[in-house]
């Protein structure tokens, strides 16, 4: 049952990701990305990381994609882009991707990586452990992340405001 669900959700994630990349229209890309993120959240559930699955749906499928759609519609970019691939870029990227996939494909031959099945109660299942770790061992990264969010917020405000100021200056 779990195996079938794994194949279902990984196929969903990968197919949606391919459609994100191939789609000509940026809005369609963003909507397929929601699908990809939902498939990813389902894979997190299969890995018993329930909290991360919820966070994935809330933050990525909720906030990030809404931000993307907002910007796409704000900029009103018509027709996506022209299908002009530089042949050299295409060849190089396909070679690099093939190398990556070959390297990972070799994992399947490696018997030492066929790990034993994981401990039965999943570690990500307990929200209490999550909070305890965040406020003990990872307290400093937690604080730094909060500070980073503050900096990002200020940065976004400055980035959005500066153009208005620069425009007003020559007129004044």
């Amino acid at each position, binding site marked *: *049952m779990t*195996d079938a669900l*794994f194949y279902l959700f*990984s196929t969903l994630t*990968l197919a949606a*990701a*391919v459609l*994100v*990349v191939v789609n000509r229209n*940026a809005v369609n*890309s963003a909507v397929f*990305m929601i699908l*990809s993120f939902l498939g*990813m959240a389902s*894979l*997190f559930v299969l*890995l018993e*990381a329930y*909290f*991360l699955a919820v*966070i*994935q749906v809330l*933050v*990525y499928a909720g906030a*990030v994609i809404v931000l*993307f759609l907002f*910007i796409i519609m*704000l*900029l009103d*970019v018509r027709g996506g*882009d*022209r299908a*002009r691939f530089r042949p050299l*870029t*295409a060849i190089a*990227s396909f070679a*690099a991707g093939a190398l*990556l996939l070959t*390297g990972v*494909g070799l*994992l*399947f031959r490696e018997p030492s*990586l*066929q790990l034993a*099945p*994981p401990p039965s109660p999943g*570690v*990500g299942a307990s929200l209490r452990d*999550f909070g305890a*770790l965040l406020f003990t061992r*990872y307290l400093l990264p937690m604080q730094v*992340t909060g500070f*980073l*969010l503050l*900096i*990002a917020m200020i940065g*976004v405000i400055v*980035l*959005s405001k*500066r153009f208005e100021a620069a425009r007003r200056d020559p007129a004044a």
Partner: protein
Amino acid sequence: MPALPCLSALPFLAAIGLNHYIAVAAMLFAIGFFGVLLRQNTLVIYMSLELMLNAATLAAVAFSRYNGTMDGNVFVFFIITVAAAEVAVGLAIVVALFRKRHTVQVEELDALKN
């Protein structure tokens, strides 16, 4: 659920393990990689970048699950937080760029060329 003997001969169709998750993460990373290199719309490039970040996230969660520790999950929590901040800043930069140059196609954003 007993595995069929004919299927267990193929390594891919064995019981789902860490390798399968890593393979999915690698394929997702490769797809995002193609998107970053082949597309010309800055917003789609940015979305492909997010796909690559998600692939790394999936690998971290899988390693954490099969290692039996929480640390990978906590790392992924931080990664998601940083990614949200990064998306906000990046999209603000794209908007500022669009106001300045009136395009989001990377082919036309060549002010630093030569």
